[in-house]
């Protein structure tokens, strides 16, 4: 791959999926795109780039998907789900007692382990949530991972990384070497394809947003824009869960950390008192955050 090919791919990926590759990641692009290049019957990445420049839209889509990282597992990092069961749900159970409606968004849900883990947490509170309307919306850029999520079928390896054995027995059915999550859990999750770079206000308002381990791939400006747009879709007392290595601190004041709950954030009420400010002058805010 020539430096010009790499530059082209970097620019395209940044534009299409937000992926912010540094100048020294040729090896990553090469290893991720090699299988795709072979499948397409192309000689190598230079030929792939020529086809992409010629406007082969299906191929471009495949390249963007192949470059996404779909590493995930059930109850990843454990702590966020302890927060969900121990802090977030008790607070919302009482705050929404009259409305009895909860909307949860799993942004960049990959192969479905995160939204299904959320669904299993909610199932554990079935008695308190009887008569409630629960919506879990799971979105991802990649159609391929969404298809796997919908099927809810996982390998023996996948069900052993993070999933307590009691929950495996309770919520999964064994199909030969594979395990399928039961229909009652599957039906709690709706899947939609979504690119976080594009407008997502049509998803509606949410009480809880899980957005973990995806913003790490984006540059600062993109991260800030996504935080700002998520904040606008959240209920004032809603909660945002970020990944273990992520924070809003120093990036945006749209959220503030929830006291003593690592990774958990709430919309900043001080921000809410100035409606429209962020929307009208996003550039100013980015500069100020730096």
């Amino acid at each position, binding site marked *: 791959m020539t430096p010009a090919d790499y530059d082209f791919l970097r620019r395209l990926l940044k534009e299409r999926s937000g992926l912010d590759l540094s100048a020294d990641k040729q090896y990553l692009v090469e290893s991720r795109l090699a299988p795709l290049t072979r499948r397409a019957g192309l000689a190598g990445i230079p030929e792939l780039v020529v086809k992409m420049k010629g406007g082969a839209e299906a191929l471009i889509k495949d390249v963007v998907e192949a470059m996404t990282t779909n590493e995930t597992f059930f109850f990843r990092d454990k702590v966020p789900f302890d927060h969900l069961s121990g802090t977030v749900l008790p607070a919302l159970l009482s705050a929404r007692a009259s409305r009895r409606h909860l909307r949860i968004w799993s942004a960049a849900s990959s192969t479905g382990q995160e939204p299904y883990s959320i669904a299993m947490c909610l199932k554990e509170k079935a008695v308190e949530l009887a008569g409630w309307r629960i919506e879990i919306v799971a979105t991802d850029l990649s159609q391929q991972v969404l298809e796997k999520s919908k099927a809810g079928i996982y390998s023996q390896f996948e069900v052993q*990384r993070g999933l*307590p*054995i009691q929950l495996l027995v309770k919520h999964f059915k064994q199909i030969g070497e594979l395990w399928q999550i039961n229909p009652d859990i599957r039906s709690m999750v709706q899947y939609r394809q979504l690119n976080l770079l594009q407008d997502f206000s049509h998803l509606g308002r949410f009480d809880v947003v899980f957005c973990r381990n995806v913003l790490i791939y984006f540059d600062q400006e993109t991260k800030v824009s996504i935080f700002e747009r998520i904040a606008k879709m959240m209920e004032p007392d809603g909660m945002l869960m970020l990944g273990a290595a992520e924070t809003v601190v120093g990036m945006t004041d749209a959220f503030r950390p929830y006291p003593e709950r690592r990774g958990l954030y709430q919309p900043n009420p001080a921000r809410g008192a100035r409606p429209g400010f962020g929307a009208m002058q996003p550039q100013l805010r980015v500069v100020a955050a730096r």
Partner: protein
Amino acid sequence: MRTCLVVDDSSVIRKVARRILEGLDFHITEAEDGEKALEACKRSMPDAVLLDWNMPIMDGYEFLGNLRRMPGGDAPKVVFCTTENDVAHIARALHAGANEYIMKPFDKDIVTAKFQEVGLI
């Protein structure tokens, strides 16, 4: 340092498990069947037991029943590690007092996840 008793009739599996668990800072003792494992527990109760099911002389299931009836035998966290990977076996193991269950083949990630799950790390 926490202790883990690795019980498996295959010396290869014991070696692999030892390497993984020593990497997680456990002190390892080994036993090749349930009877030897019970003797080891009588001498000194471990914090954790990684337990195969099918073994000669005394299998893992029988060992677990005996362990849980011993004085102090309810303390160790018992993680089955077996090729018996159907729901019926898993349910029997949990009913008999197993804390977690690993279906072979396993790797470092799975052992780590399961030991985290039961609060050993």
